């Protein structure tokens, strides 16, 4: 399924990128409060959504793996952890650039940003554990993933409760509910969801191939072919 779905999803994502880019420049209204820099919003927010989704997928699949100990859930957990780390890096970088453009500051240690950084560090931790922790790496990483997933509601609540963070549509109440801004943003979310699926499927394939290599090596060692 994956082999055929990946090119289709990648193509749909590419179309979505082009359409979203065109709409955000030519269709979405100009935000008078956040000015031109508000255009970062249309890809920054979808990346944040994908960070949450990828982390949730990682947490749930880890939980299932801890219960069933099935390889496919382990593969999905690792793949989604890596993709979540990628989206997390994108959110932190684009958010930082936006903050510099809008408020002339790259970073501030406020709750929302600090929590987002902690979530990202947890995801990087999962990837590192999987790589270096040895035989029990899968279970350690799964536990860490479940722990990391618990951070999502806190970050989401803090972003919505924050006085400083620009909300959907930004620019104050007048633009916050502007349907054109919302339309372009949700199109961005759909596009990056397809992109998220593409990357996870690609990574799952890769993880499955790594597993196959390990199994073949074990066979080779047992047969005395490899030393």
């Amino acid at each position, binding site marked *: 399924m994956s082999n055929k779905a990946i090119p289709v999803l990648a193509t749909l994502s590419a179309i979505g990128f082009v359409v979203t880019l065109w709409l955000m420049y030519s269709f979405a209204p100009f935000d008078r409060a956040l*000015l*031109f820099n508000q255009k970062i919003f249309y*890809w920054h927010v979808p990346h944040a959504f994908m960070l949450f989704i990828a982390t949730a997928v990682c947490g749930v699949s880890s939980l299932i793996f801890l219960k069933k100990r099935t390889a496919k859930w382990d593969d999905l957990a690792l793949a989604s952890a890596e993709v979540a780390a990628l989206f997390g890096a994108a959110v932190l970088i684009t958010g930082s650039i936006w903050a510099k453009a809008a408020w002339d500051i790259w970073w501030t240690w406020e709750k929302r940003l600090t929590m987002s950084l902690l979530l990202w560090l947890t995801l990087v931790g999962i990837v590192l554990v999987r790589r270096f922790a040895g035989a029990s790496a899968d279970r350690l990483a799964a536990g860490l993933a479940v722990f990391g997933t618990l951070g999502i509601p806190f970050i989401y609540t803090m972003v919505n409760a924050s006085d400083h963070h620009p909300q959907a549509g930004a620019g104050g109440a007048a633009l916050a509910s502007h349907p054109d801004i919302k339309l372009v943003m949700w199109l961005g979310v759909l596009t990056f969801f397809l992109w998220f699926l593409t990357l996870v499927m690609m990574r799952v394939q890769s993880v499955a191939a790594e597993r196959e290599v390990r199994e073949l090596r074990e066979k080779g060692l047992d047969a*005395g072919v490899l030393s």
Partner: protein
Amino acid sequence: MRTWIIVVLCLVPALAVAQAPPAAERPASELRKICADAMNADPSFSESIIMTINEETFRQHKTAGDAIAKDQKHVILAYAALWLLAAGFVLFLWRRQQTLKTEIAQLRRDLETASK
């Protein structure tokens, strides 16, 4: 003597005028009224004042607008960062997958050869 009297009589008022304090500034309301009267009396004077004000306002708006329109640096920087991250990850996956495919094929060949 008469000449001296005439000279003194002329010099005293001249000195008085020279040392007199400057006339008090006119209040703003009076200046405003004078300006309004002048503008009403001469339409071209009125138009020139309005044009000057408009040009200045227009210039300020244009400068601000240009600054906003030209401030694409951060947007481009953010998009470039996203694409670099995505491209780097895809490249990593692709190279990893190629290496794994080669390795799997080699291991299978070795195992088949060993089993014969």
